[in-house]
């Protein structure tokens, strides 16, 4: 490992260790800081997982309460975000099981549903490009709510959270091969939605 990479790895490990120590102490300042730091990432993950803004916000709060209560279980050896998303995921799964003990697929929304988030106002060089991009974003966000929740979750973790394949496997509890397959199938499932967006 080169010195720069070594520096970054050491910094990340130190940060995770500090978080682990703070969580063991139930340090309120640390928790406030973590809530602020991970607010957008956690909410985005929960929105895609549940397909509902209201549910996602409830789970957002419950996740942090669970982080507080189970903070002693975080050892600091893994990335904090991986542990955080695992807690959030387990809460959603528990909720789904309590509600209807069938499957995770029940989180796939109806065809007429509206995405629980706004489409980006992306500034591109020309008005045409801007329109195309907005159209694509709308189609993809709609498509995301129609593909299987396992694909949706994996795509979010991979391309929005930038997680490695191993980290995604940790969060989802799926084997590495399954994670790879879900990324491929998820992108393939979104392809028709992208094509539908073309002007």
């Amino acid at each position, binding site marked *: 490992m080169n010195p720069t990479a070594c520096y970054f790895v050491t910094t990340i490990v130190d940060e995770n260790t500090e978080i682990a120590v703070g969580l063991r102490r139930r340090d309120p300042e640390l928790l406030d800081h973590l809530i602020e730091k991970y*607010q957008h990432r956690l909410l985005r993950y929960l929105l895609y997982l549940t397909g509902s803004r209201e549910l996602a916000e409830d789970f957002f709060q419950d996740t942090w309460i669970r982080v507080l209560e189970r903070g002693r279980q975080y050892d600091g050896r893994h990335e904090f975000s991986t542990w955080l998303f695992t807690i959030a995921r387990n809460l959603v799964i528990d909720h789904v099981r309590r509600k209807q003990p069938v499957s995770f697929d029940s989180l796939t929304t109806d065809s007429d549903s509206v995405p629980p988030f706004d489409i980006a106002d992306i500034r591109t060089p020309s008005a045409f490009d801007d329109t195309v991009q907005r159209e694509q974003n709308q189609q993809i966000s709609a498509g995301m709510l129609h593909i299987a929740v396992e694909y949706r979750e994996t795509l979010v973790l991979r391309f929005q959270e930038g997680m490695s394949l191993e980290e995604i496997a940790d969060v989802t509890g799926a084997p590495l091969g399954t994670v790879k397959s879900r990324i*491929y199938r998820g992108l393939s499932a979104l392809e028709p939605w992208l094509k539908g967006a073309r002007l």
Partner: protein
Amino acid sequence: MNTDPNELKQHERARLMIALSVGLGQGSSRTTLSHSGISNSDDVWLSSHLESCLPCREFAENSRKTIRSLRGIPIATTGSLVSSTQMRVRQRTQELERQRERFWVVCTCVAAVTLSSAVSAALLWHAFEWMGQRARLSPPVWEGGFVVVYLAPAVLAGIVLLTNGTFFADHSPPFQNDPNAN
């Protein structure tokens, strides 16, 4: 696209590699296998395959656009959500702190009661032994007296609790009829 099984496998392989490597930063995607999921030799093979395969090139381009769109969807929390979460977490922290303090109070009480009962049992035993010898009683008699006196407070407390109702009976919510039961 050709329907030859071998060629189909090649396209499948290429698309899987595209899915695993597309959308990652150049620095990270090409240097480590664990992050990108494809090795350097696979990367070379993929590049040569893409040069000759239009559908796979199209898939790669669509995947890039899909990922760009995914990243272009902004999802922001509201300030009220963050502040209410922080407030809930602080309240829960205080609750847990109170629970922890109560736990230590209970532990201290249990330790004190255990210690004092051990000391008082030894003192009471010697007192009964002395009185038994003074009154010229046989050991089983004063030993029986010790047992009765030592256990009497606990037995009395148990009787009082049973006649007046226990703490749990007084504090548990009353049974309610299920409105849906019919």
